[in-house]
């Protein structure tokens, strides 16, 4: 299943003005692996993902993706191999474009033919009926929109999918459907995932390994099994785990 590292990040630093939001972060994700990044707001977890996707150009350190060292700008081939799904399905789809337009755009950018069969297949892959093809985002539910966003990412057949809180805007029943879809797609296509979430249970369910971040630093890297065994080493990871188990009356 794996053929070496898909993503290597070494000594990544990101600053916005005076605030140093990612501090000397290093990790490696193997090909075919699902890697989680968890942390509270302001921990820098989404910023890491934006650096990897090429959305944030101001950083220092070394980022190697699929064997190639990455600079601040990325070329078309990169975006064909690495795609991202965003948190808010209400904000990430163009309100005046139909599902068909949304899915056709990446194909047009990359000069890929066979529009018809590719769009039809992308819809089928994410479990949306063909009848949805000419609908606008406002005619879809939150879960359906997130499926469209996933279809848009997958239509280029990338090897790496960057997922930024893909289900935190969804109801739990819809979250289950979207997580199942992501799991099935990963095993079918041997995709590599990086999943950013504040929800430890979601990361524990989806990922093989994970990194806990706090205030820009990688606090602890662990196997998902460590999470289930409630056996993190650092104080902060323990605290986060305890807090996620709900309220305790002392």
């Amino acid at each position, binding site marked *: 299943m794996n053929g070496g590292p898909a993503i290597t990040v070494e000594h990544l630093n990101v600053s916005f003005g005076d605030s140093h939001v990612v501090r000397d972060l290093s990790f490696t994700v193997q090909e075919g692996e699902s890697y989680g990044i968890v942390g509270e707001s302001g921990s820098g977890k989404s910023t890491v993902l934006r650096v990897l996707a090429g959305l944030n150009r101001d950083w220092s350190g070394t980022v190697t993706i699929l064997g190639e060292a990455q600079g601040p700008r990325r070329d078309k081939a990169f975006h064909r191999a690495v795609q991202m799904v965003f948190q808010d399905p209400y904000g990430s789809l163009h309100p005046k474009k139909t599902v068909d337009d949304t899915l056709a755009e990446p194909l047009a950018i990359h000069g890929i033919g066979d529009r018809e069969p590719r769009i039809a297949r992308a819809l089928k892959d994410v479990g949306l009926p063909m009848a949805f093809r000419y609908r606008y985002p406002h005619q879809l539910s939150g879960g359906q929109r997130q499926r469209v966003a996933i279809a848009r990412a997958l239509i280029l057949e990338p090897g790496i999918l960057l997922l930024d809180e893909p289900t935190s805007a969804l109801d*739990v029943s819809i979250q289950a459907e979207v997580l199942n879809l992501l799991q099935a797609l990963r095993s079918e296509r041997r995709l590599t995932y990086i999943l950013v979430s504040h929800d430890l249970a979601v990361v524990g*369910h989806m990922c093989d390994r994970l990194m806990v971040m706090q205030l820009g630093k990688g606090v602890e890297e662990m196997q998902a099994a460590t999470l289930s065994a409630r056996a993190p080493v650092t104080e902060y990871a323990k605290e986060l785990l305890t807090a996620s188990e709900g309220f305790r009356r002392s």
Partner: protein
Amino acid sequence: MSIAPADQPLLEIDNLRVNFNTPTGIVRAVRGLSFTLGRERLGIVGESGSGKSMTGRAILDLIPWPGEVLADRMVYRGQDLLAMPRAERRRLRGRHISMVMQDPKFSLNPVVTVGEQIAEAYRVHHRASRREARERSLAMLEAVKIREPARVYELYAHEVSGGMGQRIMIAMMLIAEPDILIADEPTSALDVTVQLQVLKILDDLVTDRGMGLIFISHDLHLVQSFCDRVIVMYGGKAMETLPAAELADAGAMAKRHPYTLGLLGCLPDLDHRRDKLQTLTRDPAWLA
């Protein structure tokens, strides 16, 4: 107002309905909900569109046109809310029954300092001088565990963090010392560690002051660990009402409503890793 005996419920609601009359027909957001609230933490859980927030708003008479609130009985400490004139209902709102909204970013006034907003809430309900209201507000900020209340008093909404904003909102709602607090997803915009601090404040109020708390949430784990009783809502109806502890009790699952089981089943669980999460099948008969 006479003090109600301790065992009298704070709120009794029978067959509550919220309808929206739209050009394309009547949308029934709440369809016949009945419950009583004592000095306890009552959770209302459900997915979006289940009518849980509408229930909270209906109690406060905050349903906007074209919505209408109907009920067979709505009684607050022996006083019939349905027969009450609007003005009197308004006096009750904020003073005796209060509500904390989900997002402090959109609920605080951006052009007035947060301290003045809290003081204003006090002066609306009590005859008090500005100075007295200010002192009360500072004490209230301290009660919701805000450090340096005097400094925070002078800040504007955009200068405070999410967790602080939510505590400021709670301070504002509690300064009038209501008997009933309706909290609509009060912690879902917050990080888990801050969330627990806010819950602790609410919890102390129920324990120490004997307040009745209606805690509206979509988070089953949280409701199960925080509340005493839980109403599970779907499509505007209560599917079941149960002691919160039973949500986590594997032995009690046989008695559970299939919708409750479905909701529990689709949550990822660190202790039971599965390849596939259970998905929910909804039965139209539940709404019959």
